[in-house]
Each structure stands twice: as C-alpha cells, then as structure tokens.
C-alpha cells in the first residue's frame, strides 16, 4: 500500500521560543491506523494541526496524499475540545459538515441521526451543547468528524472523556468504518491499551522538542474483546509503557527548554 501521509523532518517553533516539533519524521500507509502517544505537551496536537492544514511547519514537509472523491470529505478532524456551535442542537451540529457540502436536508438529517446513535447518543438529538455532559459533547464532535465518511481521519484524544466501555465501542466503530471506507486514521491517545489495540503502527513521541523516538508495530490482525484479555496484548502494553516512560526521561535533543 502507498503512504497516505508522509511527514519528514518537520520543525515548528512558536513565537515565544517553544520548539514544539523538531525533526519529526513518520509515514502512514493508506488504510492503516497510526497512533501517536507521548507525554503531555510533546507536540501531538501541533503535528495533527499541521496534517489538517491548520498550521504550517517552519522546516521540513508534511503531506497528505490526495485521494479520489469529493474534496470536502477528504480529511476530517476531531479536535481535543468538542468545538460545537452553542446555538445548534446535537443533531444539527453533526449535520453541519453535510450542510456546508450542500447535501439534501432529509439526507443529511438521516445520516446525522444514524451517526449520533452509533456514538450512543440516540436520544439526545435535540439537546443543545450546554445541556450535554462533557463526554456527550465529545461524542457529538466525533460523530461530526465521521458523518462525512472521510478518507483521512485525524482524532486528537477524542475518547479521553469517556468511560472505558463506551470508549471500547467507539474504538470498534472507528475500526469498522476504516474497513468499510478504506480510511486512513491518525489517532492521538493517552491510553496505552487503546494505542496497542488500535494501532497498526504506534509512534512514541518525546518532548523538548517533540519528535518520534520509536515506531512500533503491535501486529494484531483481528481486534476483539478476546484480544484485550490475551497475554500477547498485555506484553505489548507493557512494552509500550516502557517506551513511554523512556520518552519522558529522554535527553532533550537540542530543545530550548524543558
């Protein structure tokens, strides 16, 4: 499979001198799930923003290979915060991307409703964001990212505010849609078990400046509940945990400050 995403030698330094990324290199095969893990503040969000075209590298290149299909549906991102329009109901927030792409009203409502019930919010279509719990708001944002059936999906810690069971369901939902649509997924997460479960490839990042210190392939084919209980899985989790601990202690590679 060709690479859908290639990042090579990316550097991003902010005005105040913080070097969020330096020499970051990675690639993601089309149709695969890449997971980014790393300590808080190591540049994961910055990298995702660069991939989404919201920020530009100061050096190096980052590219998302063009794919067929309607432009608007190409790349979808769920931010670390829900970013909902406060005056729109859950349903109309989810329908927003379809509305902006000028889908027919009936069609977009149906698709939004279906997606809302897939994330477990079947009864909450008409609630306003201010009437939803934190986890429900995040799920609305995830539904909004998925409703366009994108070809590249960027998820920034979307499940952090969810209980483990809902989270497992959403993990499986993403994997299913990946299989259905041949979607390429980049997932930022803090849950090591989630990283191990979801990742075709896991990139461990270290801070100051942010960079990839390890690329790792768990190599699980089918994922299901049984996998989570298996010793193989436990071993991968332990290994990843080790890497992460190592990354936090990593000597800053030319970073300006801790």
């Amino acid at each position, binding site marked *: 499979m060709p690479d859908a995403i290639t990042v090579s030698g990316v550097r991003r330094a902010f005005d105040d001198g913080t070097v969020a990324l330096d020499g970051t290199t990675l690639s993601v095969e089309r149709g695969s799930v890449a997971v980014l893990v790393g300590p808080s503040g190591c540049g994961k969000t910055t990298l995702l923003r660069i991939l*989404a*075209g*919201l920020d530009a590298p100061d050096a190096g290149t980052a590219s998302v290979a063009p794919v067929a299909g309607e*432009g*608007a549906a190409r*790349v*979808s*991102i769920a*931010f670390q*915060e829900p*970013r909902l*329009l*406060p*005056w729109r109901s859950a349903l109309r927030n989810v329908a*927003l*991307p379809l*509305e*902006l*792409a000028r889908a027919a009203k009936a069609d977009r409502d149906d698709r939004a409703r279906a997606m809302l019930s897939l994330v477990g919010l079947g009864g909450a279509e008409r609630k*306003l*964001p*201010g*009437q939803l719990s934190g986890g429900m708001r995040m799920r609305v944002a995830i539904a909004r990212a998925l409703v366009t059936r994108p070809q590249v999906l960027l998820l920034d810690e979307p499940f952090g505010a969810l209980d483990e069971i809902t989270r497992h369901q959403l993990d499986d939902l993403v994997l299913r849609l990946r299989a259905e649509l041949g979607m390429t997924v980049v997932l930022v997460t803090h849950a090591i078990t989630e990283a191990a479960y979801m990742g075709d490839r896991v990139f461990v990042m270290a801070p100051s400046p942010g960079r990839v210190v390890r690329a790792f392939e768990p190599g699980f084919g089918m994922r299901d509940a049984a996998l989570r209980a298996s010793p193989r899985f436990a071993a991968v989790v332990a290994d990843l945990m080790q890497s992460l601990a190592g990354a936090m202690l990593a000597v800053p590679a030319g970073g300006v400050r801790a």
Partner: protein
Amino acid sequence: MSRTAASSRLRTALAAAVPPCAVLVACVCAWQAAVWVFRPGEYLLPSPIQVAQEAWDSRATLARAAWLTGLSAAGGFAIAACTGVLAGSVLAASRFLMRGLYPIATLLQMVPLVAIAPLLVVWCGYGWRTSVASAAIVSVFPVLASTLDGMRGTDRGLVELFGTLRAGRVQRWWKLELPWAIPSIVTGLRVAAGLSVIGAIVGEFVGAFAGNASPVGIVILSALREHRTELVFAAVLTAAVVGFVLFGLVSALGWVALRRWHASVG
C-alpha cells in the same frame, strides 16, 4: 398546562415591568420635589404636573408628531440596521477594507448635520426623506461598529473548524459569524434605536414642513421660540416614548434571536 404557562409568562412580563416603572415614578417624584424646593422658574424647568397638563391639552398635536417622527426614525433605523450589518460584515471579512473604510465610516458620525443640511435638503428635498436620511446617518455607525466587533470576536476554534470543513466565505458568515455576533449586533441596534429618534428630530430641525401636521422636531423648535417650556418638555417626552417603542421592538426581536443562544451558553 398551557394556560398556566401563559399566565406565568404574563406574570414574568409584569414582573419585568415593575423595576422601570418604579424608577420612573421615583424620577418624576424627585423632579416635582426639585421644582417645589428650588423654584427654578417655569421658564427653565416646569413641574411634571404642568408638563402632563400641557401634554394632555396638546395631545392631538403630539400624537401626530409622534407618528410622523416615529415613521422617519423607524425608516432611518431600518436603513441603518441593514447597511450597518452588511457593511460591518464586509469590513470584518477583509483586513484591508477594515483598515481603509472603518476610519472613513467614523467620519460619518462626526459630521454635524447642520453642516451638510444644505446638501441633504437638496438631495432629499423637504419632508420625510431628509429626516429618514438624517436618522440613518446618525444611527448607522453603532450598528457597523458592533457588527464588526462581534464578528471579529468569533471563536478562533470554530473558525478553524469551518476551515477544515471547507466552508465557503458566505457559509462561514451566515452559519458562524453572524449567529456568533448576534448579541453584539443587538446591543448596537439598541444604541441605534435611540439615536435614530434624535437623528430624525435633528433632520426635522432643518428639513421638515411646518404646518398643521408637524413632526416632533418642529414642535420642539416652535415651542422653544415661544418659550412654552412645558410643551418643549412634553414634546421631548413624546420623542422618548417613540424611542422606547423602537427600543422595545428591537429588544424583543433581540430577545427572540438570543433565546436559543442564551439557553445554550447560560
């Protein structure tokens, strides 16, 4: 169920009316007391009783004046509201335009009407057109400024979201920036509602017909020259009533527009 809801809404509305009425009554009493204590002379400050008497005696004149001035103010306000929101949106859309046109727009509100009165009368003729134009000129800037302000304050995160969803410029305006700016625009419109009345009156000072059916501006001018201070005050109060009605309409519209918004943020 719905009956209770209706009656409770009525009760809410009544409760909302109590504070302004209370303050109003307090003001009127203070005014009457001041007249009793300081005796400033009727030619300077008539008592509320005298003003009320005069207002009653001249009720036909004042009602007609209120109607005429109200129409001019409402017309000017409507023009200012549309122009202000549109111009504010355009200015918010482009840094270059904003820098270039915003200062020019401020110019508009710094031209004393009397200085451009000749131009205005020549362009618009005597009659309601001049007072409508004057009302519009005076009240457009607050709307423009608050629209601009509200739109530029749009949450950066949501603007980014619309960018990633490849929303067009018009879509972003209509579905994001305009709803976001509504609370701010409503404030601007409120300011404009009051200003449009004064704008209409000032327009009448230079460009209205005096006759049997005189608008408030002409009534004030004549009364001033005749030293009928009670009538001046009665006419000013009439203008205030017109302003309140406009203001109330704008507030009510704003309340409807803000309702969902507030439900969501509050």
